[in-house]
């Protein structure tokens, strides 16, 4: 029997779509930094700050590759 609890949301980058424009790191540097090749490294933790969440949504809208997405994190038990 699986029970899903919605714990929160976090920003995820689709590395296949991402081409390293780097806008996300400029818009929400709180959780995104760029590696040595200009690709984003996203903090895998949950976003608890409303302001950061708003900036993350802005980054998602600005990415020209549509490579960012907000993931609903669930914990599932078996």
């Amino acid at each position, binding site marked *: 029997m699986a029970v899903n609890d919605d714990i929160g949301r976090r920003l995820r980058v689709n*590395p*296949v779509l991402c081409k390293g424009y780097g806008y996300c790191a400029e818009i929400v540097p709180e959780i995104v930094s760029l*590696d040595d*090749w200009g*690709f984003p*490294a996203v903090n895998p933790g949950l976003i608890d700050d409303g302001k950061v969440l708003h900036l993350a949504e802005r980054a998602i809208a600005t990415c020209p590759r549509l490579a960012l997405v907000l*993931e609903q994190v669930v914990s599932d038990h078996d």
Partner: protein
Amino acid sequence: MTATEIGLGAPPAAWLPVGARLMSGPGRGAGHERLDDHLQRLGTRPAGGAWLVDVLKESGLRGRGGAWFPTWRKWAGVARHSSGHSVVVINASEGEPLSSKDRTLVSLRPHLVLDGAALAADTLGAEQIVLYLSRGVDSARRTLLRALDERRRARLAEPPIRIVMTPHRYIAGESSAVVNRLSGGRAKPKFSLQRSAEKGVKDRPTLVQNAETLAHVGMIGRYGGDWFRNVGTASSPGTTLMTLCGNVQRPGVYEVDLGTRLGSVLEAAGGTVRPAAGALLGGYFGTWLAPTLLRDVTLDVDDLRTAHGASLGCGVLAVLPHGSCGVVEATRIFSYLAAETAGQCGPCVNGLAAISEAMERIAASVGGPADLDRVWRWVDMVRGRGACRHPDGAVGMLASALTVFRDHLEMHLAGQPCNGREVAGLPQPPGPGQWWR
């Protein structure tokens, strides 16, 4: 003695049926076991169902594709989303160049593997079974076509089984690459927030399972979980197939009781040709073992992980001969892995290329501490940032080499020439692949 040799290219050896399970039955020279013989030897398989998930849980069977993930949990994940349209995929692509266990298994015991798949189809409500096979193993394909023909003529109660060929690339066997290929795309990994258990081939719940794992299921379905646990350890029950290569007298595929000491397995293969300089356990994504460990390390999943940070992976044990250099070998393998990325993800493509270049310098003894610092920096930078675990596997193997062969590494950094480059250590990695379909 707990290891049975079924090697393909090896000279004929004495059969040791005691402890052999998957490979019990006719010897290697008999070719693929026919359906009649298979049914006569093992009996017909039962119908699968929800009960099988519980039995698999009891049995403690773990996936033999490299991840060693509990099989019952994988099936439960698919069952949760299933509604009669699931897909069962037998992953026999075996992109690991050093491994030949899967092609050996499907060539000699196809019906055992196919039984396991049929049991999965019953349990998960699948209406199709796909056999995912790599090009370049044409003999296996012909054998499987004959086996499928036998089953069709016998009108066995199972969904239609079709064979899909895939390019012989390292990454073509990765789960999401399998799903991608079977959905009409290329055999390249895909990023998704949903796992293939939920949305896989053509968005249907999909089980991608290694061929050997399904063979074990074929037997567990008949004999139960307790029977499976008769050999092996508590955390690693049952037997497993291993491919031994490199510095061993009789390289080939062996069925081994889990929990065995590595030394016993090497003995079954006739021991090493020259003194061992170390070994790679688990394939190209595996872990290096110092020569001193080669005798007493036990093939137990938990033990390997906690004591040595290692994993059995896809069951490859590649032994280095004395005189070869672990740093050089690891660099060769790493460069192959860097060339075999899908080319999709920036951190992996750039990171592995950068690391490879620095390691080539170090292996050639022209690199310095700055190069090594960069390598470690990039190893951390690359982990977890691809759409699949290719970069993780590659840097994991390299990190273990840099730790285990630290003294060799120091020599290289000091600029001392190493004749490991002349010695043929492990079989050379193949040249770069070309196609993706």
